[in-house]
């Protein structure tokens, strides 16, 4: 009868199952330890600023945590508001110039006569907005708003070209610029005038 080694009688048999279980337990323990360290060390993040909100493209839930505007930001928002009100009306009138052309009169000359004054309105808005002094936190937003006004002015100039050759393509090109501008307006509104639009 072969002798049985004392160690093989005393030590338990360690199979693959036991090794796998040990690995899983170790991994779970490491995870729990990591989570505990992370949570106890976690500091609540400060609410993002208006400028950060504008340029960072915040995720859905973060919008509700925006901090209030500073006095300088409020002053800028108040100064821009009358310009913004006029720009919105001018943008809507420009859209209707195109709508009426397509739906009603198909008269390129009427498009020109309606849109020409709006070109001047947008250019006036560019000059007046350019004269504002935004706080540093809103420099990006200010630049974007000026770009939007520039896009509206470009859209208006493009629309008027239909009077030269009657091609609808001018309206399509103008619309593309107008859409980009109106999107930028909304982005800024979200930051500067959070009460601008209400549930309808």
């Amino acid at each position, binding site marked *: 009868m072969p002798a049985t080694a004392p160690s093989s009688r005393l030590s338990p048999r360690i199979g693959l199952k036991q090794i796998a279980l040990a690995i899983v337990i170790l991994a779970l323990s490491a995870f729990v330890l990591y989570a505990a360290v992370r949570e106890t060390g976690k500091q609540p993040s400060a609410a993002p600023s208006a400028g950060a909100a504008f340029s960072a493209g915040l995720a*859905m839930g973060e919008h509700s945590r925006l901090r209030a505007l500073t006095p300088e930001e409020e002053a800028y928002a108040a100064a821009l508001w009358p310009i913004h009100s006029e720009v*919105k*009306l001018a943008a809507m009138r420009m859209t209707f110039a*195109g709508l009426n052309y397509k*739906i009603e009169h198909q008269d390129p000359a009427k498009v020109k006569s309606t849109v020409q004054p709006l070109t001047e309105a947008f250019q006036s808005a560019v000059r007046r907005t350019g004269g504002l002094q935004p706080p540093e936190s809103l420099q990006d937003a200010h630049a974007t708003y000026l770009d939007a006004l520039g896009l509206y002015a470009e859209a208006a100039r493009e629309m008027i070209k239909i009077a030269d050759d009657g091609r609808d393509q001018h309206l399509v090109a103008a619309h593309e610029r107008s859409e980009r501008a109106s*999107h930028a307006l*909304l982005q800024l509104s979200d930051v500067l005038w959070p009460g601008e*639009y209400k*549930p*309808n």
Partner: protein
Amino acid sequence: MKVWEVVKGAALAGAAVAATMAAPSTFAQQYSVWLVENSRFMNVPYGAFMPDRAFVPGSTSKFNNINLIDIPVNVGVIKGMVNGKLEVVLADAGWKQQDYLKMTGSAHWAALPDQLKLLGISADQVTKIVVGHGHWDHAGSLSDFPNAVLYISKKELDGIQWAINYPHPRISATNISPGGCARTPACGYPPKTLDEVYGKVLGGKAVIVEGEHQVLPGIRIYPAYHSHTAGAQLLAVDTGSSVGTLVFGSDTYSSWQGIRDWMMANPQSSADTAQQFLAYEMCYKLTNNNIGNCISAHEPTSYTKDYPITSNSWVGINGSRMAEITLAPGESSKKK
């Protein structure tokens, strides 16, 4: 001769019977219909939504003992085969511009195309969108549906244009102050929303509706001017099933309880209470007094047993809800 008369009479009688049997039923088309919650306005004072439901502290009246409500933005989805072609019609088109989230205290927003995927519908399968009116939360996702033809009323466009060109700044204003639009006639139509409508017109995918208009067999637009906005319109859908006719009322039917209890809801300066009540009456007539079939855009009890037509519901993306109203033969349930 007598025999001939008898034979002739029998032949004529037989032909009459055959003709009657061959006559088509009044309406054979069948549609599947769902309701989808595109987003929810949270914590809205009840009195701002329905003046007759204003909160009175300590009141025991069920009409005045609720302070704040959450209001869904509901979109109707109607699907059916018409002359061998798949038709998917949306009643209103929700919104998608994320900038509105904080402004309007919204939550549970989900992109409408993603919500339609849960119903087995892709965005490019949507063939028609009938907007009850052009406010930002009802005509905001038009560009997400490239093949859809927009149906919007001429009166709606005329109403907006009248307002923005009116020679008084308080009437032409889209907002009277940064704090809100105070429901001016042009309020609720941001330039971005008008651009959505214009994009459809420029693309040759718009029908400018004047008065009543048949969209598809069994699907008909009825004008409800000044019941919410200048060019508000209703969409009646004869489902061809035991459910009967549904009437999607957009914001004219902002509150289903308002229709039931004859209370105005969601007042606007472009609206007239009398016109809203006449539109309620229209639903009673179109549904043969089965007002449970009046589909509201913002009813707070949507997707619960308290609004029975919407009670077959489940939770979808980001906590938004959906309800199955009726299924055409061959359509499987999408309820989770």
